[in-house]
């Protein structure tokens, strides 16, 4: 005979305002199997939990029902208390009489009757609860970091410094990401390369970090603590072990006029190249699409001049499988472009700005390359069209961002600050030049940020015009900027030599495809979704996968670094135990009933269903049945609902329990 204890919570007044909690306790106390029932103002508080623990011991309770808020809120709290009192935590259930009752009703009498019924159902259900042992799974203490920008670098270094192995995968030939492209950084104007490149070198030299550049994630299988990740290492055409990074191949390559993506296509590179001189690893890669050898089968100069014989035209893409325990996704961002978009695209271009066809209308990142000492102009601000120094420059903010009519409604967060920085760099580099900024609002919430923005106006003489630009067009060698100054209420026209657009931050192209491989969720823009916007900001809903940097939403460098270190801390927490404990709410197959149709396998979103052969003692195959891997099972119950022979049951949510609840009504 069960001895069930029922505990009714007032939730301050949240429940007791509408539900007569004392009456509920009295009525429920009369139900068969209920040995004890009481009510208390705050069940979740310390005295409330002590009341529960004391009752379990004094009344020798066998099961517990806590009638309070949603189990999403406090199920864990009460199960922990029950466990502390010596009962199996899964013999405790919550009856939700707050969200499902007191909050949504006004009539006290009706709400009280409903609360009694809700508690009564849970009493019948808890009678059928079984003792469930906690499931443990082993943890591979080795992590994968996807993306070698500042987010991935920071996460990799933190995890590796803690003594755990890290596999860092980067799609480009070098790590560094966008931060390596920047000139100087707000709000201190320290040089990006100077603070970034030492970290890149640390990654390359770290004994615990294995670096795969020019590589991509091909496939991800498994689950938290036990992932198998297939990495595609693209053919570099240069043997990394032999190459000394001397660079002779690059000086001799006859293909010298290939636009360098790293320099936003303003600077040129060779077909065998490193994207920038401080690249890590300092091993060139052959761009096979532009290499004479790969196009015509002739040339091969690089191979001839290479002393160590590192150039290998025959190299193939290779697939590498790594066992991984936790994954940090740090794939970063792409910049929105104003160019024409394909028909039907939800994101639109800027026809009114000429769809990107005016040569001296550039974006912020291109300006960074112009301003960078290691950039294509050696740090001089020069027009791409004719190499002249622009004497009047116009910066326009919120291009694509906060522009619902263009399909993006969010704020890109970093542009106000980097535009202020651009006006300063321009003022320092072009004496006598005048910078104008068209802006909607200046958003400067960060340490030292507003002071920095004010400085651009007060000391660096940038003219800020509140209003947006309706059109840009080329007139002779000038660009006419037609805009409005809403502070004064007039239309303004500026004839500029150069225009810099603060274009929106978007997730990486193909971010959705990677998310599908990883089994993580993403929003309508393809930014990856965190498990909880406030309380779990670096974790994915998928266990064992963490987020760092702009792949989750627009971020500046300090915020990205913070998030990367937070993600690393989460990985280290996971790696602090040898075994991982997880809730035993998983599906189990009744093998005698299973006919091996595998309908469950088809519907399982977690890939948890495996095929299991049942053999007799002689080893003859009797039948193949479904087996649910408890480490992978997400406990969603889809297989249970699908199984035609009713042979799968979700522990804690069996058909028997559900029927008992219905019958109690």
């Amino acid at each position, binding site marked *: 005979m069960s001895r069930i204890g029922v505990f009714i919570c007032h939730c301050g007044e949240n429940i007791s305002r509408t539900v007569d909690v004392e009456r509920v306790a009295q009525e429920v106390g009369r139900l068969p199997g209920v040995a004890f029932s009481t009510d208390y103002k705050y069940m979740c508080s310390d005295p409330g939990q002590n009341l529960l623990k004391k009752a379990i011991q004094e009344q020798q309770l066998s099961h517990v029902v806590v009638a309070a808020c949603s189990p999403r809120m406090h199920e864990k709290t009460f199960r922990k208390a029950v466990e502390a009192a010596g009962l199996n935590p899964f013999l405790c259930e919550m009856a939700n009489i707050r969200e499902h009752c007191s909050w949504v009703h006004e009539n006290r009498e009706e709400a009280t009757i409903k609360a009694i019924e809700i508690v009564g159902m849970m009493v019948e259900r808890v009678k059928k609860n079984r003792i469930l042992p906690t499931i443990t799974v082993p943890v591979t203490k080795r992590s994968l970091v996807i993306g070698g920008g500042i987010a991935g670098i920071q996460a990799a270094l933190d995890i590796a410094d803690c003594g755990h192995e890290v596999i860092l995968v980067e799609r480009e030939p070098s790590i560094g990401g966008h931060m390596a492209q920047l000139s100087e950084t707000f709000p201190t104007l320290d040089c990006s390369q100077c603070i970034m490149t030492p970290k890149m070198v640390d990654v390359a030299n770290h004994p615990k970090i294995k670096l795969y550049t020019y590589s991509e994630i091909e496939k991800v299988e498994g689950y938290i603590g036990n992932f198998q990740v297939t990495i595609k290492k693209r053919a570099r055409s240069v043997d990394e072990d032999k190459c000394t990074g001397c660079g002779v191949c690059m000086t001799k390559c006859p293909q010298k006029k290939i636009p360098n993506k790293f320099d936003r296509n303003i600077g040129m590179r060779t077909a065998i190249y490193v994207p920038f001189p401080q690249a890590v690893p300092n091993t060139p890669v052959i761009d096979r699409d532009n290499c004479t050898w790969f196009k015509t089968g002739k040339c091969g100069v690089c191979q001839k001049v290479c002393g160590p014989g590192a150039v290998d035209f025959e190299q193939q893409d290779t697939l590498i499988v790594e066992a991984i325990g936790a994954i940090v996704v740090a794939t970063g961002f792409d910049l929105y472009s104003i160019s024409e978009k394909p028909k039907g695209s939800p994101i639109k271009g800027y*026809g009114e700005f000429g769809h990107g066809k005016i040569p001296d209308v550039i974006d912020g990142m291109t300006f960074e390359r112009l301003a960078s000492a290691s950039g294509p102009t050696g740090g001089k601000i020069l027009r791409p069209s004719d190499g002249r120094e622009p004497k009047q420059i116009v910066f326009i903010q919120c291009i694509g961002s906060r522009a619902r009519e263009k399909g993006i409604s969010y704020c890109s967060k970093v542009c106000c600050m980097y535009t202020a920085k651009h006006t300063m760099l321009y003022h320092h580099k072009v004496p006598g030049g005048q910078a104008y900024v068209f802006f909607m609002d200046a958003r400067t919430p960060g340490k030292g940020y507003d002071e920095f923005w004010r400085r651009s106006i007060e000391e660096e003489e940038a003219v800020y015009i509140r209003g947006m630009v309706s059109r840009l067009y080329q007139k002779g060698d000038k660009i*006419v900027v037609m805009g409005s100054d809403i502070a004064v209420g007039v239309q303004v026209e500026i004839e500029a030599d150069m225009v810099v657009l603060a274009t929106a931050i978007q997730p990486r192209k193909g971010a959705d495809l990677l998310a599908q491989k990883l089994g993580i969720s993403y929003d309508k823009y393809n930014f990856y979704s965190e498990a909880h916007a406030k309380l779990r900001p670096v974790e994915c809903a998928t266990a064992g996968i963490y987020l760092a940097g702009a792949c989750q939403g627009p971020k500046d460098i300090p915020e990205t670094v913070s998030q990367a270190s937070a993600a690393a801390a989460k990985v280290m927490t996971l790696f602090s135990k040898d075994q991982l404990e997880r809730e035993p709410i998983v599906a189990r197959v009744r093998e005698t009933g299973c006919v091996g149709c595998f309908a469950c396998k088809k519907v399982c979103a977690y890939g948890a269903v495996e095929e299991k052969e049942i053999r007799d003692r002689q080893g003859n195959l009797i039948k193949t049945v479904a087996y649910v891997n408890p480490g992978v099972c997400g406990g969603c119950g889809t297989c249970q609902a699908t199984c035609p022979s009713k042979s799968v049951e979700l522990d804690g949510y069996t058909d028997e329990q559900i029927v008992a609840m219905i019958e109690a009504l």
Partner: protein
Amino acid sequence: MKTTLNYSYYPGCSLHASASEYDLSTRELFKALNIGLTEVPDWFCCGATPAHNVDELLSLSLCAKNLELAGTVEGDLAVACAACFSRLKTTQHVLTENDVKRTQVEKAIDAPVKLDGKVKHLLEILAKDLGLERLAAAVNKPLAGLKVACYYGCLLTRPTDVPNLDCVEAPTIMERVVEAAGAETVAWTHRLECCGANFTLSRPGVVIQLTNAILDSAKAAGADCIMVGCPLCHGNLDIRQKEIEGVYKTNYNMPVFYLTQLVGLAAGLSAEKLGLGAMIVNPMPLLKEKGLL
């Protein structure tokens, strides 16, 4: 060419008054192209640019009633004026999206609102329904050597959230139509700028300034003439041109054609049938020079 296309026709107030040559040339061109046009019986003002600024319910109701009347004639609704087009499309859009407003309008016009009929600007009919190939086939006097600046103004492609005949910020439909008629088009900067529209009466100073920028841009791009699809734009560019030349001490001498006049010329229609005599800036010297008369 066999007659396959038939439309109900909403000329709008301007085409019965100041823009009668737009009406005339539309009817003649469509006759020449074998496209049927039946004027909507008892149509009235769409409210144009002022009504919706004063009373939204009034402006929606005016258009809803006109749409109801248009439903009595067979075929999609052909509209010549950019303002009428914009208002009729907007009304359809708003009343489809907003149940509350639809109920109010139905009460106001005392009839169920009809939103299933298609509203089409003449450009759409020529470029899409008839098609550029068939249009080109109907050309017997190509506008060879004529450099045209296609002027969209504000309303042909706006408002932005209403499904429209072409891209809002970089449309090409006018260029495609007049190129099918054999003309050259120029790339210019002010084809989508506002001409000042009906401020021509209340704030002529503003209109003169805005319209001058448009004429200046067209001339700088090397255009011989401007083509429009809106009577209000036409009024400002054509009627005010002499005055603007005086204010800015310049000389444009830039004829402003309706699209139906230029396409009509290419289809071999006479100057009388196209109402070319009604234009303030005389186009005859230009057309003679280019050998198009």
